[in-house]
């Protein structure tokens, strides 16, 4: 036995087993640089809440292409990625603006033109596929989906006869995203993340993916995360973290800010106007033409917008007024 402190041996490399660097703070562009052409990407948050929009805008400024997006309920995030030509395959369960605005225009166009391969999935199917990845299994069994059109869309699904019950079961393969892109309210320098409100798939994404990058509204000391109620995603899953206030805008990131319905309405009008209109009215001014997140924040109205969206906490009347039809005009 050698005299060195650590006994060494012939280890095979385990690049992403755990991420243990004590300081993972990086800039937004460093984070965006981790997303590579052709990656399978898991975008955190859901619908109009806690979506990592600032990282996605930074990714688009880097002209990343041919992403496969996989997850559950999405809206402006996937629509924007499609509108900027970054997506070649969508395995999401839902991409839309609910009853609020309706069908996602860029996503629809990209699917109908054939630019984006339609590889739709369903929420629990995605959950089971992520669970397989988290448990290091090649697949998970599942009862549902047989009889619908989804198995026909997914030749990678298989069936088996259960050796216990004789029933037919569906097998769905492990989903291991190349990178999970998350936005949390709080994080620390080591990469611990605290999510307030519905975590949606973020914890599963973090555990299933080869790499996790996260923006947060505030980087705080670890003890503060504990005081706030605890850590949602422990640091060893996370490779890099950036403090990006308003990093989920125009989706909500409570308690900091509500959903920016007016901005989303403007986005939607631009997207519905066609590729050209979307490019000139939204993509250039708000994404590609902004040098960085600070420019974006100035473009959307800076502190005034930030204050407006923070008024939700003043009471029901103030909160409601953010969402009134009059607020859209």
């Amino acid at each position, binding site marked *: 036995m050698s005299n060195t402190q650590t006994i060494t041996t012939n280890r095979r490399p385990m690049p992403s087993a755990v991420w243990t660097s004590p300081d993972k703070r990086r800039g937004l562009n460093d984070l965006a640089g981790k997303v590579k052409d052709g990656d399978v990407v898991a975008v955190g948050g859901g619908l109009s809440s806690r979506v990592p929009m600032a990282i996605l805008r930074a990714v688009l400024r880097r002209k990343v292409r041919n992403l496969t997006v996989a997850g559950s309920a999405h809206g402006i995030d996937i629509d924007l990625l499609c509108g900027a030509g970054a997506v070649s395959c969508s395995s999401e369960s839902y991409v839309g603006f609910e*009853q609020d605005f309706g069908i*996602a225009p860029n996503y629809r166009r990209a699917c109908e033109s054939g630019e984006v391969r339609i590889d739709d999935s*369903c929420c629990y199917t995605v959950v089971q596929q992520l669970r397989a990845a988290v448990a290091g299994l090649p697949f998970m069994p599942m009862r549902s989906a047989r*009889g619908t*059109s989804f198995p026909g869309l997914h030749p990678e699904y298989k069936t088996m006869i259960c050796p216990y019950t004789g*029933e*037919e079961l569906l097998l769905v393969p492990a989903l291991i995203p190349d990178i999970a892109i998350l936005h949390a309210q709080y994080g620390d320098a080591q990469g611990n993340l605290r999510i307030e409100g519905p975590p949606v798939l973020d914890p*599963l994404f973090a555990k299933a993916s080869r790499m996790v990058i996260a923006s947060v509204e505030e980087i705080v000391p670890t003890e503060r995360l504990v005081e706030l109620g605890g850590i949602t995603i422990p640091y060893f899953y996370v490779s890099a973290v950036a403090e990006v206030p308003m990093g989920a805008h125009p989706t909500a990131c409570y308690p900091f800010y509500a959903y920016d319905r007016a901005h989303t309405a403007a986005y939607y009008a631009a997207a519905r106007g066609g590729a050209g209109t979307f490019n000139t009215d939204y993509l250039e001014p708000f994404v590609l033409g902004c040098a960085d997140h600070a420019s974006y924040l100035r473009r959307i109205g800076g502190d005034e917008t930030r204050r407006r969206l923070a008024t*939700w906490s003043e009471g029901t009347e103030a909160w409601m007024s953010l969402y009134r039809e009059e607020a859209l005009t």
Partner: protein
Amino acid sequence: MIRDCSLGELMVTAIARTVEDGTLAFHGYGSPLVQLALHVAKRTHAPNLVLVAGATYGINPNPPFLSPTSNDWVMDRGAAHSLDIEELFDLAAAGRMQRMFLSGLQIDKWGNCNVTRLGTDRLAMKLPGGGGGCNLSCDVDQVTLWTTGHRPAPDVAGRRRFRLVEQCDFVTSLGHRGVDGRDRRSLSHRGKGPQWIVTDLGVFDFDAEGHARLRCVYPGVSINEVRDSTGFALRLAENVESMPLPDRETIALIRRLDPLHVHEHEVRAEDRDRRFAA
């Protein structure tokens, strides 16, 4: 003084009536009519309902108002606890979720729904997708379908595209017979399949074959109008009744729950003025 109710309020009441006390029911997202229906049920005949909110997975929340999108902190205010997404779907898979609500741009005679794509060989239109509807349609004990688009409006080309169709172009969520005609019982799914379809014209149930069957119509709606609006051969219950209207307390409750009239987004513009005496 409440004298009448709107189509939306009538549909909320009809959907609420499909919810039983002492059960666990889940509304998805993008469905304010169903969100309201669950809150109405919980506050009237089903006080022991376990109400799971769509998108936030809050348990028995008491939202101060309905927000225009579903994954908003408005929607889980007052919930003492929220589920994780995986727990919610596990409950369904284990047979513990008694009711879920699904819709589609196409709903066929077996209760299959399509929210994925129009066009079979060639893609005519990409729809948003079904969220967890596919899984839940197989697992949840009972399903209530609903649509505000039963009466087909002519499209830009003047063509009427039926919402209730003979066969879905894509089966996003499973009805009583699947994509290859297989009976759902032969698939050994936990759930019993769609039980009701609540539309802007009336309410269907399903016969022993699993085929939709008109059970009641709204005041002022004729069976012929329903037949004319339906893309499959209409089957009728023995006694097609007239839908009982909500009482004034229920109407007042709905208005209190949705001061921003978010649910009107789900109702077609031309139907927003339809009124029914209360």
